[in-house]
């Protein structure tokens, strides 16, 4: 039906042709309706008025070579006819992409140059179907790709899915921070331990003398401290009870949960201890052997990030409440928002955060059931 329509407007004899010139100088003519199917050619004709004669041929972009051009024109010639069914078009397309890989690549490039979107999609789809299901070695074979990655680089995705260097750096930061916290903790523990030991021995003696059990020794000690030593009042009681838990905490595993719950419920608690929740990370990550320059950079990054984090906390949008959130985690969160301390990098579970005005800062720190971390941070 379309043919007869055309016949009314354009008798056979007056069929117009468009002249196209490839970068290598060769010129060919093609029916107008076929050429107009290409958006790029259409625009050239409309904009510059070229192509109507041999001397004013349309100069095609460089990536369109003559072989690809003839294929493209075949494609256009078939598809510009309106009466065809979807089935016919599909089977034509199927046969059309059965060419060798080199030609296919060139065709894809040429189609992109002429902005012929359906053909770009068709060729890329065909290339994808060739690549799919094959191992990287096989793909390199087929397409003659250079094997220029080091073994280490190749292995990275397998070992650590967060192979983005930023991510790895951030992971290191946290691990480092944690380590520092831990060390600080240990120092305090050592101090308290010393004091404790002394006191305990006395207390124990006293208790023993008074006939109390060992477990109550601490409390008795606490009372005594309150009465006698005002200075250490704030710290000691907490540490006395916290100390055994801390020791376990330092060993770092998920079992700490129960103890941490105890910690957070204690009335007197120093800010340092609050954040000493868990370190369910691989200790091996900490040994990164960074030189001082890197360390500085890391410190800067950390400060930067925590600043962003504070911003983010302040403008946090409505998030879905976790259904399995344990009570101590909630409490820690509340303390975090209030504290805004440098040590407030405790990775509890907080979900994706989105800042619309300032672009996307999206940090997902999660702790899986096995204690893994999915740490992804992107800032822009």
């Amino acid at each position, binding site marked *: 039906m379309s043919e007869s329509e055309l016949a009314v407007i354009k008798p056979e004899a007056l069929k117009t042709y468009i002249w196209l010139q490839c970068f290598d100088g060769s010129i060919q003519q093609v029916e107008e309706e076929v050429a107009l199917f290409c958006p790029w050619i259409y625009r050239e004709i409309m904009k510059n008025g070229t192509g109507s004669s041999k001397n004013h041929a349309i100069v095609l972009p460089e990536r369109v070579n003559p072989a690809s051009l003839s294929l493209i024109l075949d494609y256009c010639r078939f598809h510009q006819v309106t009466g065809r069914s979807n089935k016919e078009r599909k089977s034509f397309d199927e046969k059309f992409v059965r060419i060798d890989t*080199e030609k296919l690549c060139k065709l894809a490039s040429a189609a*992109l140059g002429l902005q012929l979107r359906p053909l770009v999609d068709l060729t890329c789809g065909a290339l994808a179907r060739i*690549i799919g299901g094959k191992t990287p070695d096989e793909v390199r074979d087929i397409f003659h790709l250079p094997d220029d990655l080091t073994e280490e680089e190749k292995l990275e995705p397998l070992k650590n899915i967060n192979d983005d260097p930023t991510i790895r750096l951030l992971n290191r930061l946290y691990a480092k921070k944690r380590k520092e916290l831990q060390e600080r903790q240990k120092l305090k523990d050592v101090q308290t331990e010393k004091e404790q030991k002394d006191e305990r021995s006395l207390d124990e003696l006293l208790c023993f003398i008074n006939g109390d059990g060992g477990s109550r020794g601490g409390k008795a000690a606490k009372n005594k401290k309150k009465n006698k030593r005002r200075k250490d009042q704030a710290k000691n009681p907490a540490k006395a009870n916290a100390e055994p838990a801390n020791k376990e905490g330092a060993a770092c595993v998920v079992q700490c949960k129960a103890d941490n719950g105890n910690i957070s419920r204690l009335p007197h608690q120093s800010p340092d201890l609050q954040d000493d929740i868990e370190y369910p990370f691989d200790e091996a990550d900490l040994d990164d052997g960074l030189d001082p320059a890197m360390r500085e950079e890391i410190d800067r990054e950390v400060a930067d990030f925590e600043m962003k984090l504070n911003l983010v906390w302040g403008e946090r949008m409505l998030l879905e409440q*976790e259904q399995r959130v344990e009570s101590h985690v909630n409490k820690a969160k509340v303390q975090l928002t209030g504290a805004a301390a440098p040590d407030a990098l405790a990775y509890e579970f907080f979900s994706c955060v989105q800042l619309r005005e300032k672009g996307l800062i999206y940090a997902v720190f999660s702790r899986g059931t096995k204690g893994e971390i999915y740490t992804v941070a992107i800032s822009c």
Partner: protein
Amino acid sequence: MASQVDMFDCLNGGERQELGAHMSYALSNIHRALPCPAVSVARRLCFLSDSDGGGVDRLSGLPAALLINIVSRLPIKDAARTAVLSRRWRPVWRSAPLVLCDSHLLRPGQDKIPGYVDRADSDAVAAAVSRILAAHHGPLRSAFLACTYMDRDRPRVARWLQHLAIKGVSELFLINRPWPLHLDKHLPSTFFSMATLTRLYLAFWRFPDTDGLPRGAAFPSLRELGLCSVSIETRDLDFILARSPVLQNLCLEGHLFTKLRLRLVSHSLRCVQIHFSNIESIAVVDAPLLERLILKDMPLAGSCRINVGNAPLLRLFGYINPAKHVLQFGNTNVKAGTLVNAGAMVPAVKILALEVCFGVRKNVKMLPSFLGCFPNVERLHIHRKRIDQPTGRPNLKFWQEAGDVECVKSHIKMLVYHDFRGEKSELAFLKFFVERAQILERLVIVCANGCFNSMAEANSKVKTLFAGKKDTKCCALQVVESALGEGGIPWNYQRGSDFSHDPFAFIVQT
């Protein structure tokens, strides 16, 4: 609101079993009906190498846009593997918009959604999905999640939704599977912050509560919405229709949980498909662009009121069943013997499909009135429905005495009669039709599977219809046997929304 929870709890064993059976039927329907993801593990192309050899790398020389296009068409595992191909390819994976299809993550990866999934497999796949969503920083074109028991870990699903919202996903298929099934818990309302969402299909969830949503919550780009066995209230659906300015296709499937009164008010809606659902009433209030309204299979007892108001472009309407549907115009129902006036007509409908129990007198009597409401029908599909026990003897003289029906007389060009069994009541109707239809061009009779001993027998029965026809203008007659069992027409949503084809003309021949 609590009725859903109670619904399960207060059912006894037998009822629960029946509901369970409905739901597994709905589940398999849904899997079959969903559109396929754009990326496939199965469609491979054999490569042809150029005979000159040369061994030149043409692929890496392609512009980045093309490499990204290629990688975005790969299934997720293959896409991740391209990161180790060569230096040029390393950054491509991270920025390519991917299609995440969780059936590809099963071992072995497959395209079709499996009917049954092991708990262990489900957990593995869910963990993999979480990892991928966390690790891939680039945009995500579409997410097709249908292989996990999502109610085992709701917080995880909430996290997925947040990831997807941030990544600007444009097609989301979140297909849950029972059991466990917590239809008392609402889904999070993260969908409303997915501004780029064009296609959304949900199955076996409870739709987020639209009551507490902020004023700006909307679906600005949503073109296609499928709610399959989703527990949703009337007001939620009204909210969605009101806040989806470009919605074209709406599919409701397996709606078994709440009473729904569908009010179609939308200036963009083109096609509405309702399958296997228990809908109280459908009111096409104001749908100026609505072209197709397809209803199929109402599983539970009860009738559905259909009120067609402003739908000037409604071309295709079916399967109306006089036994289950009550056509209503304004406030009056169309009853047997009603003389239909101009106000109670839908003049735009060109393709009509009816399901009729010819053994039931009442239904047969309704037929002329129903047909009278659609005066310009050109193509009529009649599906014969079986009934368990016939109610009285059918009145064969009814058709001889019936008056003229406008569409039959002057508009119908093609009649397709499905599930022909050669019964007297059927023959009476067909005879009426053949004699009164003046411009009938084609008559297709699809015989029920295995009903006749041979095609010759079927042919002879049909030929009797033409015995009395004295007229000159002949129409083409085609008698075929259906390969499908009774009522077993597999449906998929794409067939319903493909505007170039008649979805009712689906005949599978032996």
